[in-house]
């Protein structure tokens, strides 16, 4: 089975940013993403998922490595200073490269 290398970008951040984030991802050329509700603990304290004001989301994007870098750089510059945000990149393999 032929596999194709892509990058998986995972962003965990404040739910209040969801709409803005989605608009920016699309503007940067991301074709698809998955968003799930999340909770956990980090440097900015414990984040519950049961109340919109304080909940977190996890955004996952699979795309070309160059695009993943661009998105990651943009998010870092735009949000790291003032928002709770963690992001990381991983190598993944996909079967249908035209989708990503």
């Amino acid at each position, binding site marked *: 089975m032929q596999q194709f290398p892509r990058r998986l970008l995972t962003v965990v951040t404040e739910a209040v940013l969801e*709409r*803005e984030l989605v608009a920016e991802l699309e503007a940067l050329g991301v074709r698809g993403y998955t968003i799930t509700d999340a909770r956990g603990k980090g440097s900015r304290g414990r984040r519950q*998922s*049961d*109340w*919109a004001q304080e*909940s977190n989301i996890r955004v996952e994007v699979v795309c070309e490595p160059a695009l993943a870098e661009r998105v990651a750089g943009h998010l870092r510059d735009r949000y790291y*200073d003032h*928002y709770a945000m963690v992001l990381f990149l991983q190598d993944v393999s996909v079967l249908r490269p035209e989708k990503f």
Partner: protein
Amino acid sequence: MPQLDPVIWFFVLGVAAGAARADLRLPGAIYEFVSTVLLLAIGLKGGVELARDTGAMPITELGSILLLGFVLPLPAFAIAYYVGRLARADAASLAAHYGSVSVGTFAVVVSYLATRDIAFEARAPVWVVLLEVPAILAGILLARGLSGDVAWRHLMRELFLGRSIVLLLGGLAIGWLAGPEGSSSIQPLFFDLFKGILALFLLEMGLIAAAQLPTLRHHGLFIVLFGVAVPVAFAIVGAGLGQVLGLSPGGITVLATLAASASYIAAPAAIRTAVPEANPALSLTAALAVTFPFNIVVGIPLYERIAVALAG
């Protein structure tokens, strides 16, 4: 012991359970549902009453309540900035929260007045809508100035299409269109169960308030004093305006309570995106862990006395 509305005990239960870290959590979807029903119920009730008598809102009332929303943040900002010595962004954020209104507090005052058979103006939900947004705009201006890099178009859309405004105005319209007879079919859920739904809402609010308590300890005395003194002062301003506008004692109580209440839904979301450098925990803790409990337990009975004294 004064007669405490049983719904208030649900709030106390939530705070106690949350503080004791009891295994109690309402799923987010339940909170959304319960608050949706409350907002619609309040809107519908007002709409049905409006259909009964066509007491149109005088334009002076509309204008002065809008103005009240813009003006209230100014003293709140001054106190937080000059007395509390908070950073400009934090002071502006507090000002936006305290100038704007809490629909939960509104629901409690509606329930309080209903229990005591005190009538108030049917158009009161419109006051909530009028008071919600101006203070948030004023707070953003206080933080940013006129030239600031705020995405106004996006922000306005978020603010004017916020849940509480859409549901309150939607409920008002439906109640008004359906009238007293037409709305009898939806009476069981929205009117008969109002208190029970409010009790669930307050249980959840208690849990959320308890979750803020560690932050409260961190921010200390100023937030507690601010969270109690500012609402009482604002209630007096609101009651005074209500009297000048010639509202009923019930209406004065509602307007005073609205002026005293602090937003914990619309304001935090808007300020978080428009003034990101403000510490969100500070304003939210003040509004939720200090002012909301103070208003529903001590404040509302006090504001009613002020209203009666003014009207009498």
